């Protein structure tokens, strides 16, 4: 966060343009991701915030080309990783990139590790697939990676199975798999939701150190503005498959301009001060197969006006790199 000005000069590594991922269901087409664009620079941390069903995880699965098809399909848009469009790649070509140049840390360390393979086996898998090196060196690399994520006594724990490790340790192993091939882009999907607070703090610190050590571009998918405040340089707020506001982390916190961002920020209790009464957003997040015309947040919005239910607002630029999609800014 402190090196903000230098990060802005770094080259863009990942560029997502007009991404649309739709799912065909028996209730109709679900527009899980509906025109998402953003870019990500080397060494930068981007937070993607939203509730369940906002499309944040599907966006990242689309970037990784992990959308189960059918029923899902990337219907439009481009995902450029250092200029190469991932959407057009064959499954085999994508397989060479996935895990090596762009990697994913998934939410639940309890289920994302295979219980019948040892830790060393699972961390080594990605290394074996992506690098053509002899067996002995694989083990050496596995140990190096395990040490990088601060697993104590790595040379004995490498033979352990997931059930022999605590939640925090398992999460570190999942992290180790993520960084094992030194990716350019690392996507962390709610990496700490199942961890205790003190273990979460350890893990976030570790991710930050790993990022700084090799200038990884990091994407945090989260519902927690606290993680954003602590970790991110920039934020994209998603609602019903669209980015409704995006900007530098300070712009978002100091001047939230989309009513949804504003409402979310004022509905979270604060650790540092007493809050008399939290603002509560009425209603439910919308169901994606049955979206109202116009702005999907309109039914829950406190500033709603006639225009909102007629057409979706364009992006209004506020300051450099800070925009929001709301008719109030017209």
């Amino acid at each position: 966060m402190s090196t903000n000005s230098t990060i802005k000069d770094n080259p863009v590594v990942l560029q997502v343009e007009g991404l649309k991922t739709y799912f065909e269901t028996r209730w109709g087409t679900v527009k899980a991701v509906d025109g998402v664009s953003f870019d990500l620079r080397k060494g930068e941390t981007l937070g993607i915030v939203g509730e369940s069903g906002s499309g944040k995880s599907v966006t990242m699965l689309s970037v990784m080309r992990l959308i189960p098809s059918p029923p899902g399909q990337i219907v439009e848009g481009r995902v450029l990783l250092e200029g190469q469009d991932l959407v057009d790649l064959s499954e085999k070509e994508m397989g060479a990139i996935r895990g090596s140049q762009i990697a994913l840390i998934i939410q639940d360390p309890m289920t994302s590790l295979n219980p019948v393979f040892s830790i060393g086996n699972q961390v080594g898998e990605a290394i074996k697939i992506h690098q053509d090196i002899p067996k002995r060196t694989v083990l050496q690399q596995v140990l190096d990676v395990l040490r990088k994520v601060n697993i104590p006594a790595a040379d004995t724990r490498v033979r352990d199975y997931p059930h022999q490790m605590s939640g925090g340790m398992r999460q570190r192993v999942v992290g180790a798999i993520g960084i094992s091939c030194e990716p350019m882009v690392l996507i962390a999907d709610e990496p700490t939701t199942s961890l205790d607070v003190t273990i979460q703090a350890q893990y976030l610190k570790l991710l930050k150190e790993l990022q700084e050590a090799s200038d990884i571009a990091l994407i945090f998918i989260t519902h927690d503005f606290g993680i954003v405040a602590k970790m991110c340089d920039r934020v994209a707020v998603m609602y019903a498959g669209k980015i409704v506001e995006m900007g530098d982390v300070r712009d978002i916190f100091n001047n939230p301009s989309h009513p949804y961002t504003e409402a979310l920020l004022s509905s979270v209790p604060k650790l540092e001060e007493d809050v008399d009464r939290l603002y509560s957003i009425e209603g439910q997040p919308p169901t994606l197969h049955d979206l109202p015309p116009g702005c999907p947040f309109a039914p829950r919005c406190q500033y709603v006006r006639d225009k909102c239910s007629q057409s979706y607002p364009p992006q209004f630029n506020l300051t450099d790199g800070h925009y929001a999609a709301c008719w109030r800014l017209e």
Partner: protein
Amino acid sequence: MTTTTMDARPTADTTNEVLLEAEGLKKYFPVTKGLLISKITGHIKAVDGVSFQIRAGETLGIVGESGCGKSTTAKMLLQLEEPTEGTIRYQGKTIHNATSEERRAYRSSVQAVFQDPWSSLNPRMRVRDLIAEPMVINLDLSRREMQDRVAKLLEDVGLSSYHANLYPHEFSGGQRQRLAIARALSVEPRVIVLDEPVSALDVSIRAQIMNLLKDLQEEYNVSYLLIAHHLATVRYMCDWVAVMYLGQIVEFGPTRELFENASHPYTKALMNAALPSHPDIEQEEMILTGEVPSPLNPPEGCRFHPRCPFVIDQCPTAIPQVTELAPGHMVSCHLY
């Protein structure tokens, strides 16, 4: 005030009557070895000497990480677990040697709302029956009265009376939690145990439920015991906060005092590890190393000493005394 076990019973000037009181609560789970001739090889000391009070119309929060014993404490209050040692008193009367009639009365005056509204509601029952079930068991009401009560409860928790005919799967997470709250309120309890009531819900829904709980507290004059790991939630909801570590309360106090003058190193570490509400908030770098030790054989002396950054000579050997730092603010640490 100096005793060896933390007595989280407020001495400050609250005038509300004491409803529920726990004294020296312990729960040891035996660890056995062998299949046919099993032998007890040790005990997991899930809760090891916990005392606290819940006063009418107030909220006591218990915070701590997984394995600290907060849920076991709640289960003992709900009589889902029998304490190994210690007493629970309700309105001055101990509940352990109560008659079955008194126990039934206790069970209806202490209700619970659990974390996961997807598993706490029976999917085969209509909402009407779900909410009425505690009343069928505990109250002698006619069908008509029961229906009216269900309708009133549904409205009180922000739903409508027509919802009574639906099944749980037809509701969203936030609405289901409202149903669970309505069911808990149906027998007019004096205390509700809230075990992580909002942590399974979407962010925009959490504030709705927290505000609802606060409003209902005023309307029904009910007390809450809130079990949570999210500190900001505790700050928003509670009047009193107890911080637990490895089966013991290490710090206790009125919410504001405790958050502004956190004194136990573990409480401080928890606060520093909690996520800030703004990117400009500078947090002290105080990240604990290691993980919570096994409650099977907790460390000697102060249980926190292997992870404590301020450890001094007597920590590994002597059990710390309890010191009162400010009215009602108690800490169990050798530094004070």
